């Protein structure tokens, strides 16, 4: 039986489910809506007594931000219940939120964080420096997210409202890290019971967690004592788990759901034709083909570039109906990011050029590509890609892997040749690129090692001004294109389908609990 549940999460070629905690624990766009800008419908238009039911395609396994937070459902629930120290995404620089100020020291090796006043957790625990330290330490030891905070050497409470964080190397992107999963603040009292913390999230957000009926739904209700100005627009919000795509769409059409998330373009088309709202959240991850840079053939940049150049992305886009997905970027930075820079040498579709590179390499190229058993369209898309490779003389054999563990083991032990993989995109290129491309990076499964890339990534990490960082990352993107450590296919996107009554569907990478509302009748 195909692993239906994972077919959504792992489809390295077609579409990608939300990846809240990116590979290597880097920050990503959770809890990004600072809601201080007026992109949200005015409260006066919304019926504040309304309730809403949203259909999700998967159920979270845990509601602990230091635990397994990979599912789209996590992002949606966290957006309502939790908040982060900073807020930001890859379209704008981060701004303080639960942190009042964040200041870098003169020697750039530490940051001083002053905590926001008057904030309490849903269970009454005050939010203070001790709570910040507690959370950061917790995140540092998390097997899921810990590697994102490796650069931190110490976290100290200076006074009840001030925390000092010491780093190993200067880290300009640090405020950005605090806007992602590593900066989520959980009530220390609630985390005392390690089992309870997974099932009873207590945060500072506009909603409080009310109940989680497994395999059925999660219910959030408005936090009337919310410290911020942007109160929740709904009296309660129910996230219903409806794994089957047909059933979820049927429920939306029949009026049992106010909104749903989907990654299937046929559902989007049908909802569009029936007059539903389609909301396009920003990108949070990408499907790719990881190449083991230590294997024969794949250790040569010419071969890797040839693999890229022989794929006709436009044809794939049409055939597999990627419905507006970005297939053009070719690097882990999507075209919608402000950090994107067009490469100096793009590897455009050019089979003859690919053949020339292979002729230059001189030896036959043969390898196995692994794919986790999943949706048929993923299998078909990969088959099409393998066919493109065949046309330029590269022989790739597809190996279907039936279970997630075998698949993951093959990648992290470096046993694989090539694999259809997915990765998360952080809100800052430091998160997206460092862990995956730096020599020795915790999620550098392609075992890529290039001194120029290391230099560019180090500079991007530590350079104090944005202009220098932009230049460094432009260089990194150029290097990516010329070295092609792995092949980025699509920056997948989730779609939100909603009735016309739903408001506040702006700028969120998941269902925006913080801003969603219903029009008053």
């Amino acid at each position, binding site marked *: 039986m195909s692993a239906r549940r994972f077919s959504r999460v792992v489809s390295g070629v077609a579409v990608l489910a939300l990846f809240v905690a990116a*590979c290597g624990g880097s920050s990503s766009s959770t809890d990004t809506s600072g809601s201080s800008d007026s992109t949200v419908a005015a409260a006066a238009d919304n019926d504040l007594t309304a309730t809403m039911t949203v*259909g999700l395609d998967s159920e979270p396994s845990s509601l602990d931000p230091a*635990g397994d937070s990979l599912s789209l459902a996590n992002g949606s629930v966290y957006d309502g219940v939790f908040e982060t120290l900073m807020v930001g995404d890859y379209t704008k620089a981060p701004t303080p939120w639960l942190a009042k100020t964040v200041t870098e020291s003169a020697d750039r090796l530490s940051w001083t964080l002053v905590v926001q006043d008057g904030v309490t957790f849903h269970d009454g625990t005050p939010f203070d420096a001790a709570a910040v330290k507690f959370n950061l330490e917790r995140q540092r030891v998390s097997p899921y*997210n810990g590697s994102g905070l490796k650069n931190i050497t110490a976290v100290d409470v200076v006074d009840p409202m001030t925390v000092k964080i010491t780093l190993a190397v200067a880290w300009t992107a640090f405020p950005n890290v605090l806007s992602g999963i590593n900066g989520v603040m959980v009530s220390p009292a609630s985390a005392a019971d390690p089992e309870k913390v997974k099932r009873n999230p207590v945060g500072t957000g506009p909603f409080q967690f009310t109940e989680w009926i*497994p*395999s059925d739904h999660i219910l959030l209700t408005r936090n009337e004592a919310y410290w911020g100005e942007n109160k929740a627009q709904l009296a309660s919000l129910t996230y219903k788990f409806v794994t*089957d795509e047909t059933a979820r769409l049927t429920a939306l059409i029949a009026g049992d759901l106010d909104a749903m998330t989907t990654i299937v373009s046929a559902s989007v088309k049908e909802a569009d034709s029936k007059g539903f709202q389609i909301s396009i959240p920003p990108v949070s991850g990408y499907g790719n083909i990881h190449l083991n840079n230590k294997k024969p053939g794949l250790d040569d940049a010419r071969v890797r570039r040839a693999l890229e150049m022989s794929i006709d992305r436009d044809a794939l886009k049409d055939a597999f109906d990627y419905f507006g997905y970005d297939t053009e970027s070719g690097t882990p930075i999507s075209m919608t990011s402000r950090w994107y820079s067009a490469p100096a040498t793009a590897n455009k579709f050019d089979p003859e050029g690919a053949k020339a590179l292979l002729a230059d390499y001189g030896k036959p190229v043969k390898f196995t590509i692994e794919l986790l058993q999943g949706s048929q369209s993923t299998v078909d898309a990969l088959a099409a890609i393998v066919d493109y490779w065949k046309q330029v003389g590269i022989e790739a054999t597809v190996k279907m892997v039936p279970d997630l*563990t075998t698949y*993951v083991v093959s990648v992290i032990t470096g046993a694989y040749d090539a694999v259809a993989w997915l990765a998360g995109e952080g809100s800052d290129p430091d998160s997206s690129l460092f862990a995956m491309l730096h020599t020795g990076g915790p999620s550098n499964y392609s075992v890529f090692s290039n001194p120029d890339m290391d230099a560019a990534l180090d500079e991007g990490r530590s350079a104090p001004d944005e202009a220098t960082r932009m230049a460094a990352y432009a260089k990194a993107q150029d290097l990516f294109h010329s070295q092609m450590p792995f092949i980025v296919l699509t920056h997948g996107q989730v779609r939100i389908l909603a009735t016309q009554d739903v408001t506040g569907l702006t700028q969120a990478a998941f269902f925006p609990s913080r801003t969603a509302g219903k029009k008053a009748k």
Partner: protein
Amino acid sequence: MRGLGQRFLQMAAVLLLVAAGTFFLLDLMPGSPAIAILGTSATPEGIAKVEAELGLDKPSVERFLTWGTNAVRGDLGVSYRDGENVAQAIRQRFPTSFEILILTQLLALSIAVPAALFAAARPGKRRDRALSTTSFALIAIPQFVMALTLLIIFAKQLQWFPAADFVPLNEGIIRNLRSLVLPVLSLSFPLSGIYFQVLRNDLVTTMLSDHIMRTRASGFSERIILLKYALRSSSLTLLAVVGLNTAGLLGGVLIIEQIYSLPGLGRFLFDAATRRDIVKVEGAVLVIAVTYVTVNLIVDMLLRVFDPRVRAASIGTPR
């Protein structure tokens, strides 16, 4: 009855075998459960951390015995991945799965028994052949095709029934039943096909037996013979088959549960298995095994009481 004592011992042996078999099979699978838990965010460091917390450094037998001694007391442990108390989780889902099991069996029998009687009354004739063909068709249609078809017709087009709105029994029986109509139909149609075949074939054979010949000679009408005498003995075979379907309907209806978003044991077990959540898998398998063994014990006892042939056969066996 000493026979009963022996049966209980047998049951215990079956349960031990099932529990141990599941545990050690899962344990033998390549790759540590830590990787299944961490998934694509696994790093060598993270794996080491999780393994330590899971106590995977202890030998398997010790871990199994710890789990086993707790399980006997009703403590099925807590999932590392999501902190769910396994016994509680199963207790929440069991009523749903059990209700579906009962309703499906009842509906399948309500369809199959009259149909089988109707067909067996005139074996080989047109009505028999028509019903037989229909039953084969019902068995042949894949579960998900049946489920999706019903969903599209009745939930989407006609909107008579909800697509994804399961209502538990304690929130209102009408709404509960309404939310179960489509899944139960999806499951009972193919099952009714199987039951039809079993009963019809058994009836036809019985009707040809010596015992029935004698009854016929006594002057009873065909209808009475069929309903009173043949059905009596053939229904026992059917009863045995009904019992055997218990495990399948409890833990094996994953596809139906997925399609209709039902919080049942099938999904629970499948999700746990794919995530290598050993604690949850063990708990679910044990509960299903206990139910299965209990149901079949009851069936066996009923057979012994009602079926003279079985009773007669056991007279000769040493007690």
